[in-house]
């Protein structure tokens, strides 16, 4: 299976990206999370916001890092009417994982990245569920299905973003 060679990953990480693109991707993710998902689809819904934040934290940690992830988390809290800080805390942990992974990104191909991403996402979901458990005293285990679908989304998402950034660079 042909995967992203390390040298290409290095060139990708150094490629420029505009702030507008980052902002639009986060807004799009908030939009996708806000679609009227219901029942089992809600459980299966990948957390688009988390995925996009993780992508930028891994590739451009000095542009979208822990602080901005936290701020997006606050917005997610308002949008979901969850407690203030619930998403924010989870996304802070997520962003930290992403930033740590940034240093190692050049060594990994897409498949190895997916395994790392699965770990970070599991931690993020666990933090969110833990807070909920502390406040309300129960956990919906099906919630962790979203962690699985989010992980599966990693490869298509990073390939898509890479292609979009490629196009922008070509135009410039």
């Amino acid at each position, binding site marked *: 299976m042909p995967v992203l060679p390390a040298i290409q990953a290095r060139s990708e990480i150094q490629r420029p990206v505009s702030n507008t693109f980052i902002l639009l991707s986060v807004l799009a993710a908030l939009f996708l999370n806000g679609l009227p998902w219901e029942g089992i689809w*809600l459980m299966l819904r990948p957390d688009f916001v988390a995925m996009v934040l993780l992508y930028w934290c891994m590739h451009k940690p000095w542009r979208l890092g822990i602080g901005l992830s936290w701020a997006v*988390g606050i917005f997610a809290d308002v949008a979901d009417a969850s407690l203030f800080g619930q998403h924010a805390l989870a996304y802070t942990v997520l962003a930290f994982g992403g930033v740590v992974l940034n240093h190692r990104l050049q060594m990994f191909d897409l498949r190895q990245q997916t395994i790392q991403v699965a770990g970070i996402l599991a931690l993020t979901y666990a933090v969110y569920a833990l807070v909920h458990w502390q406040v309300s005293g129960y956990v919906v285990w099906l919630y962790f299905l979203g962690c699985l679908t989010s992980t599966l989304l990693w490869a298509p998402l990073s390939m898509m973003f890479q292609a979009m950034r490629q196009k922008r660079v070509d135009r410039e």
Partner: protein
Amino acid sequence: MVRLVFFAVFSLLLLFVDARYRYLESARSALSILVSPIQRLATLPGAAWQLVGDFYITQSRQHSLLMENEELHRQHQLDAAQLLQLQTMQAENQQLRNLVELPLRNEFTAQLVEIAYAERDVFKRRILVSKGGNGNMLVGQVVMDDTGIVGQITRVYPWLSEVTLITEKDHAVPVQVLRNGLRAIVFGAGDTSQLSLRYTPISADVQVDDILVTSGIDGVYPPGIPVAKVITVERDPAYPFAHVTCLPVAGVDKHRHLMVLSKMPKLPERPLEKPALAGTDKRAKTGRRN
């Protein structure tokens, strides 16, 4: 690493403040103004789908609509007759109540609202309706549909209000069994189709198909509105309480329009229980006398 700790601690602080004291509601409603355009945008695909469905119905089922219209017309006439009867009975009831000097049952007015979005959180049973502080919504108002109680308003934004459904886990409604007036409390089970009657003794007279109506005892829900219907009663001698499950009468997860009742008048405050304080008072008094 430092930043991780800083933001994590800050989040935990916010969580604590929000969970315990609810000081942050104004900040929340301010931020919700920024978020609501995205939320509105996200409802568009669903709304478009509804529009297509409506169009299809009007095109293909004109005949059945005509039939339905006729049926509704007939039903309306029937209802009108019954309404007249109800009015005379209401007048009679009022007179009787005046005679025995009971406080009148509180009249309440209703406001129509539309469901804006269902909650997107797996853990919660809540919906958002499209009227908020600007439409005179208040926290604590009761939400119902044409058949029974749906929930109550728990948070008010400028243009939206959040409704906690009666099926939300551990949400309690004080009820009475319509058949014999037995008082009980019905709890949500975190599932859209179930409620449970907790703390009913094994010997309690609850039967399958009993209708539960609000008792109006806590002052939140007006009395006499249907809440649920009993579907199973299990009496296991090993437990002190019977295991009673009920089905909500209202379509808690069905309609697009709901009614919001105006706030109930406040009950007189519950007397404080301070036996220890009273004791010290007495001692102080005797001390002064000496």
